[in-house]
């Protein structure tokens, strides 16, 4: 009974996100037609328009087919990571993305880990030391961290550690893993600062609320040691809601990555996105947009499933407060 109910809940979530993704992909594909100028012009980009190139593009992108068929073909290709050729470099978009993806993934991964490593302990500390100088100090730095745009933080770090102290390289992604990591440290830190603010704020608020609950008092009244109460109750109950933040956090990391890659001249996906947007390179733009959308839908799904696993009230169809 219960497993079936849970399974149907999981399936329904998957379907919802799949549906959203299809909707987004449709909008992304339509960009080709709803943008000013005709489709051929958009695909041509800055190249010269001749009857031959036009005919070539028409065949390559099936432009003579009905709209929905085109979409279907585009989607089928997209699933196989074939997004056509860049209108600027005329090289396959996939090659460009493949070359840049590792840099962005390492950057985002390191930044995510840093965000959590900075954010959660600070949030826990602030909650445990509520209304003390420690708490006020953390809260104040959160407001500053929160209000510091990624690119401002990046430039400041770049200036202090790259220019003034010369500890870290000021641009590029490096070659080889260790060198990459060294190159990506400053970018990852600047990316983590803003995200950590969100996590600290959320962790603190949730923990203060949990520690104030009757069930925590009742656990202490039964003689459970305070360490046990803190670890077992507060963390278990308190960190569940922190999961929900991971989605907006991911969104802010993806956004931030764009700014950071531009600041540090890292050849990554974000950098590519900005370039292709500036040069109106539609195939590349579509590919990146779809990639990011898929990533975010998967993260959404993961967060939902984690939440379901962690909180029985969701599994059993009760709303949480």
């Amino acid at each position, binding site marked *: 009974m219960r497993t079936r109910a849970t399974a149907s809940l999981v399936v329904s979530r998957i379907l919802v996100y799949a549906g959203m993704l299809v909707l987004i992909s449709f909008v992304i594909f339509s960009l080709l037609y709803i943008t000013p100028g005709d489709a051929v012009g958009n695909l041509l980009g800055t190249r010269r328009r001749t009857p031959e190139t036009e005919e070539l593009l028409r065949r390559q992108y099936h432009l003579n087919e009905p709209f929905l068929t085109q979409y279907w073909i585009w989607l089928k290709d997209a699933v196989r990571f074939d997004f056509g050729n860049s209108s600027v470099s005329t090289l396959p978009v996939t090659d460009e993305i493949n070359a840049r993806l590792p840099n962005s993934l390492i950057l985002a991964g390191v930044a995510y880990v840093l965000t959590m490593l900075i954010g959660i302990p600070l949030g826990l500390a602030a909650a445990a030391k*509520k*209304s003390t100088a420690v708490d006020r100090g953390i809260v104040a730095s959160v407001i500053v961290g929160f209000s510091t745009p990624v690119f401002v933080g990046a430039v400041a770090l770049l200036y202090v550690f790259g220019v003034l102290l010369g500890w870290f390289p000021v641009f590029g992604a490096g070659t080889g893993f260790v060198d990459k990591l060294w190159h990506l440290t400053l970018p990852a830190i600047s990316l983590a600062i803003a995200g950590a603010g969100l996590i600290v704020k959320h962790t603190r608020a949730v923990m203060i609320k949990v520690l104030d*609950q*009757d*069930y925590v*008092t*009742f*656990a*202490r*009244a*039964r*003689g*459970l*040691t*305070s360490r*046990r109460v803190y670890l*077992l*109750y507060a963390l*278990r*109950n308190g960190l*569940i809601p922190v999961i929900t933040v991971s989605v907006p956090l991911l969104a802010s990391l993806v956004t931030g990555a764009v700014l950071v890659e531009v600041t540090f001249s890292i050849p990554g996906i974000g950098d590519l996105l900005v370039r292709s947007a500036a040069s109106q390179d539609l195939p590349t733009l579509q590919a990146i947009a779809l990639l990011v959308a898929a990533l975010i839908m998967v993260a959404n799904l993961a967060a939902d499933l984690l939440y379901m696993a*962690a*909180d*029985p*009230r969701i599994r*059993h*169809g*009760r709303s*949480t407060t």
Partner: protein
Amino acid sequence: MIAPGKSHRPAAHETTTSTVLKVRDLGVDAVGPDGTDPIVSSFDLDLAPGETVGIVGESGSGKSLTARAIMGLLPGSLVARGQVEYGGRNLLELSEREWSHVRGREIGFVLQDPFTMLNPVFRCGRIIEESLIRDGRRRPPRSERRAEVLRRLAEVGLTDPSVADRYSFQLSGGMRQRVAVAAALARDPKILIADEPTTALDVTTQKEMLTLLRGVQKARGMSLVLITHDLRVAFAMCDRIHVMYGGSLIEVAPAADLESRPLHPYAQGLLLSEPSLDRRVVELPSIPGSVPKAREVVDCCAFATRCEWVADTCRQGRPPLLEVGRLRRSACVRLPEIGAAMDAKRARIDVAEPPTSEARSERPLIEIRDLRKEFRIGKRTVTALDGVSLSVNQGESVAIVGESGSGKTTLARTLLGLERCTSGDICIDGVPAHDWSKLSAADRRRLRGTVQMVFQDPYASLNPMRSIGSTLSEAIRSHDRGVKDTAGGVADLLKTVGLPPAYAQRKPAALSGGERQRVAIARALAVDPRLLVCDEPVSALDVSVRAQIVNLFATLRRERGVGFIFITHDLSMLRQITERVCIMHRGRLVESGPVDRILDHPTDPYTVKLLQSIPRSGAAWIDAPVTTEARRTPAGGGRRTGGRDLMGEVCDGGDTHGAA
């Protein structure tokens, strides 16, 4: 572990010199940036083995904080001082590490709200199990732990093993409270402190819970400290009672003595404002004013502001608690002078009043026929009203009695057009009103001017951003748009409900609960309605204030001829406020008739059960089984009970969507 059921301590009632817990001069202070505020002061308590002591007080009396201070569980901003002696140690000096050996093992503690006390992400079995295992001890094998958990659940009357595998939110309130008691008793404490253990429960569940507590206590020879605001519960359960007011003790007495002859004006006032179940009185004796804050009464008798016998001596310092008889102590400095007057007042009140047949017309104002209301929650349909028929005459006062989930609140809301019924007919003053949205604007205004509502929670029923005056003048204008100057009307309304006109300038936050409820009544009266529907109008108020509001209702009826429908779960008020009673159970009207007939000769089994559940003094009531209806067995019924509980929340909590 001590096996439950092995009694190794002397029974109650004997006055032994041995005490397990000795509290001396306990105080609780709020430490803030601008100095310390005393919240509780000079609290004393001696607890004998096996004894039950009640701590009775209204909200703000400091009774719950006292219990928390004894457990070392005060919130961070509060500090305890004084002595709490247990096992030769002053508990207040323990470190947090030492405390974990005392809490649960020596003294157990049950909180008020069963809905928030159990961690929602753990199964019930696990919650009990984690209390069974002490830190540092070897964990017994899984099967043994499971068996022990089931044994503990059985001790509190939960014999269905599947309860251990449920989450707390899948259980009813009563079952949750049982699980909580089992968890609190897991380490076999010698004392159990229960803070309002039945306040959040329905009256029939309350009786079961109290019986259970009493049974467990006897079987284990445990001492019990019962904290409650309900004198009747205290009389039913306790050997001795400590009465608190404004943060300090004002009287300590054996339960029977307190009930027959209280020796402090406040204790007497509290006792008298509890209406008698058996007879009707002319006017409920009420205590004027409202409960003061502890810091406002530091240097005088806390009750001085409301006492009818107050004199200058009462205001010279805090009166000490003095021995005034065998095992009796009172904090009234004027007791020798006013004792006789107090006795006389009690005797005067004790005279019963025959039921008066008030003048009322036989014309029905409201006719409800076969009313049904269904709520959809996800895929399930819950029936809140299942074919209810009812008619109320002009000027009549009818009570609709039921427990949570009975559909009584839904009935009221449907009548007011706040909820749309699924089927059935409502006719108000000749206007068909089963669907208010289909009425013409004129009809709707006429109905609004005929029926009005007073809500349960006085703290939320006034818009906190508006002054009393603007709330009332808006209500006046809603009825009569032509009114230019409403100041006079506002003053009249305030006068009607017994408030000074100057209150028009105030915001709700500056008013006490009782005063807010008066304003809420005034707002309803602004449109000059012929019928007031009152949803639990006094249950959120302090006991000493309830009588004032009940008397106000009586006055309104007498002087303005307003009729009433009271929605209530409290049977004790019935005889004072109504002449006709309808009993609701699971969406249906199970019995209705004149108040005396229903209370004295109930016929429906559910009514009988309800009446038997009203607390009465003495052990006889506690130990008497609830006869008629089969006890709610957890076996197989657990999930259903959970659902029913949900229904209670839905029906009584209300759902704003859909009827707007």
